[in-house]
């Protein structure tokens, strides 16, 4: 399969296509230790057998069915304390890129902080790894896993879905990749042009369960609350009957 991304401006013009790799993020990091970063480099694998999830977790993906790839960016314009904006840009870009392939765009959301959901099922995830020197971001590796044509998921992932399980037909993975890269590039350029507030507003509108009262769980137990947005640091803002709270990742869980 030859991969050519014709519709992007710079993303994926330099593309490394690997048949099989442990992790495209890891490959990208190794590559960056020997080469100068080129903005928009894409590293894609047909099979990723040890994709990175959380520290200690893995991203599970069936070979040749999905998209597992990494993008290299050099957001040296972004303050370290503003790095959650990169997460917003990438998440929004993926949503925009996937929307032409799905029946109902309203159901496509980003589950804070950076999973991609369709209704209440997980369609993909993002894992960003930055390298910092002093007070600057030197480069970012944006790892993306999207379920495209996989229809059988292990029992350990009861909450997973793919484009195919949603739309009931097969997809050309290269077309989806191109569309997603166009979307990410669009929002990345928005960020580079200083449109942080716009990004923030759009991200909040696209959050799963935004402004819906529902059950959550934190260290003190189960409670009812409403997500009202995110702080620029990326902390989740949630309102309960009596107060407004903010949460870091892993401090709060959704009750389904």
């Amino acid at each position, binding site marked *: 399969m030859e991969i050519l991304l014709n519709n992007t401006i710079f993303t994926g013009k330099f593309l490394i296509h690997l048949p099989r790799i442990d992790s495209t993020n890891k490959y990208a990091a190794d590559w960056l230790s020997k080469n100068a970063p080129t903005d928009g480099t894409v590293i894609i694998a047909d099979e990723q057998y040890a994709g990175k999830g*959380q*520290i*200690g977790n893995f991203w599970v993906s069936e070979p040749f069915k999905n998209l597992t790839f990494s993008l290299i960016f050099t957001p040296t314009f972004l303050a*370290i*304390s503003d*790095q*959650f904006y*990169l*997460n917003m840009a990438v998440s929004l870009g993926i949503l925009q890129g996937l929307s032409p392939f799905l029946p109902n765009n309203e159901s496509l959301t980003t589950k804070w*902080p*950076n999973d991609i959901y369709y209704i209440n099922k997980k369609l993909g995830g993002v*894992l*960003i*790894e*930055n*390298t*910092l*020197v*002093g*007070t600057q971001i*030197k480069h970012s590796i944006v790892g993306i896993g999207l379920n495209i044509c996989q229809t059988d998921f292990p029992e350990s992932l009861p909450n997973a879905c793919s484009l195919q399980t949603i739309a009931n037909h097969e997809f050309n993975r290269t077309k989806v990749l191109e569309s997603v890269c166009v979307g990410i590039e669009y929002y990345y350029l928005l960020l580079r042009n200083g449109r942080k507030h716009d990004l923030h507003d759009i991200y909040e509108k696209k959050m799963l369960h935004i402004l819906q009262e529902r059950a959550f769980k934190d260290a003190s137990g189960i409670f009812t609350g409403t997500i009202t947005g995110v702080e620029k*640091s*990326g*902390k989740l803002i949630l309102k309960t009957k009596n107060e407004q709270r903010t949460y*870091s*990742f892993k401090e709060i869980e959704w009750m389904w």
Partner: protein
Amino acid sequence: MDQNQIKELIKLINQTEIGEVKIEKGDFKITIRRKDYAKKSVIAPVSSGYMPTPTVASVVTSAVTQQEKSEEKPKEETAPPSGKDYYTMKSPMIGTFYRSPGPEKEPFVKVGDTIEKGQVLCIVEAMKLFNEIESEISGTIIKVLVDNHSPVEYDQPLFLIDPQ
């Protein structure tokens, strides 16, 4: 405690052999240190918020926030041999500090390791964004000041490095 009381306290301490007094009451905290009680350590790691100025009789007052309190737990008092200016590598951001790339992986660096400029020393994670922090200097790791998997504040000292 008001200003006059602090002045009184300083006078009192000056008349004694006491080198340093720390008082904590509720959210009030004060440290009074005698000029001649200059701690040998120029680089004693201190929780973010204030730094000791050992050459002047210093009065440091600050409201103790929740965070500072949680950082009050045993800090390295055993400063390394004096007379040498070590470089303190500080956290560029708030987050969770990781010494290794994964739970069963070897730490990036250990005490005594020789490091090169540009070498990754640790990861600080915040909101699922992982940040590998590269060293800005070459040298030797003298001390690791934070435990693996613990929260760090902006500017909190992470490593002591003996510059090459």
